[in-house]
């Protein structure tokens, strides 16, 4: 196999519910000692029931909600070092796409601006930004003419395309996809998934694909990790895990598929 791009080491995330005056701090461990690595140009599928800590892990890896302990290294960049240059580099390398396309775009910003945000942050001049936005929109199948429109004029699937374009603007190498299609209609889901597959190939991307949809995970992933109660209980190459799950829970999970009831909740 090819070289390792992403390395997640013993990552834990603990939430404290401490007030100024509360005597005992109550803590809640959302993610416990999670480790995995992802090889370049592969997809790691992360599967688990809602509330098992998938999204928390996604945010921790993206360093949006930094982990309480543990390390994340992507392409040799460690954001935990708190170095300015490292952080900027990390932000260019790692991007994240969320589940809900409706709240993933600022309703008061036209989509062109949204897509250009990463470029603007890098100080790309205006005219090059515009060309770049057009290219990105075109790439995800949105007419560049509509760059000046506000998000409410687009459907859910179109918005998710725009969100993906926005993430790709900074030319990342690693994309965290947190249930990117689960709030879309089935027909649209397929389009977006195909888009993701195409993009991965064209841009040689690496994905952490989070979902509760086992079929989707099975279809996309090179390797699958199963998460439960904040820990990864089983991780193996896709075919192997589907064919011969070791863990009891995994077996149950795949036995019940595809009827995994999962409400559309953003928090986990």
């Amino acid at each position, binding site marked *: 196999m090819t070289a390792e791009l992403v390395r997640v080491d013993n990552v834990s995330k603990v939430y404290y519910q*401490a007030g100024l005056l509360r005597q005992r701090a109550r803590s809640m461990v959302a993610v416990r000692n999670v480790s995995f690595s992802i090889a370049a140009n592969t997809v790691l599928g992360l599967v688990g029931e809602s509330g098992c800590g998938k999204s928390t892990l996604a945010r921790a890896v993206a360093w*949006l909600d930094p982990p309480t302990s543990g390390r994340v290294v992507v392409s040799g960049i460690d954001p935990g070092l708190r170095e300015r240059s490292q952080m900027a580099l990390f932000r260019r390398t790692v991007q994240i796409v969320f589940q809900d396309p409706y709240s993933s775009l600022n309703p008061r910003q036209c989509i062109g601006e949204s897509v250009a945000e990463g470029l603007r942050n890098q100080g790309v001049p205006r005219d090059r930004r515009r060309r770049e936005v057009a290219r990105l929109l075109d790439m995800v199948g949105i007419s560049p003419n509509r760059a000046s429109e506000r998000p409410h004029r687009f459907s859910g699937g179109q918005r998710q395309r725009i969100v993906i374009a926005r993430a790709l603007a900074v030319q990342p190498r690693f994309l965290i996809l947190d249930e990117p299609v689960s709030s879309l209609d089935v027909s649209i889901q397929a389009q977006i998934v195909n888009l993701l597959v195409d993009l991965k190939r064209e841009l040689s991307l690496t994905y952490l694909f989070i979902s509760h949809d086992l079929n989707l995970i099975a279809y996309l992933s090179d390797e699958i990790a199963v998460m439960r109660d904040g820990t990864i209980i089983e991780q193996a190459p896709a075919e192997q895990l589907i064919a011969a799950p070791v863990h009891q829970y995994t077996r149950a999970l795949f036995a019940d598929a595809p009827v995994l009831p999962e409400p559309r909740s953003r928090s986990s």
Partner: protein
Amino acid sequence: MTRRTEIFVRFFLVVSVVYLGALVVVAIAAPHIAPADPRMQNIPARFTPPGTDGFLLGSDEFGRDVLSRLLFGARSALLVGGVAVALALGIGMVVGLTAGLAGKVVDSALMLIMDAVLSFPTVLLAITVVSVFGYGLPQVMTAIGVIFSPLFARIIRTETLTLKQEPFVLSARALGTPLWRIITVHLVPNMLPKIVAQCTVTVALALVVEASLSFLGVGAQPPTPSWGLMLRNARNYLFDAPWLALYPGLAIGLTVFCCNLLGDLLGELLQRDQ
């Protein structure tokens, strides 16, 4: 919502906007449209009833023209409302954003201070503040601004806490957008409807507090034409010159009425737009 109520809402929206717009025009153009100098005393013409001797709304205890004082009073009112709310918004914005974005300890400390300000009756607090810095409109505006800042701070903090968890803000952070741009592009524009509605309501509150302070004699300084001060002086002549209490009272009431109405309707409309 039926068509009739839609018309109803639009009608009142227009009414309040027209009134407040007219008020702004009057405030700016007061020197040109007022029939007399609002400070000019004319002792022999004291207590002229409305409509006589060229005093359209009568004259006060020094023979000053009530209409002119009322028109110039719009200046004080708008100045107080505008400055107080701008100040409250400014402080509330800084405190609210800081509390919402910084960690728990800072948040708790700031909100403790804001609660401390809120846990004291407005008028009493305003009087205390004004006693420290001296009587007068600038001091009153400052006091009101400071006292009402927790109202904004709380709204902005709550909005910040919600918005900063929104995916579009999270992905902006993932894109490396600097904090100031997150605040100006992603946070503030999206809390604007609530802030605007709160602004108009707070203008109304500020007017009432200013009038109350002036009524208690710690607000506007004579001979400043201020509606609250006019009411204070009028209470001594209720039986001989009732018009002195009537017009400024109506002016305050109408303005407060329209500000509140505007705030409510804006809130309603903006909510529906979302």
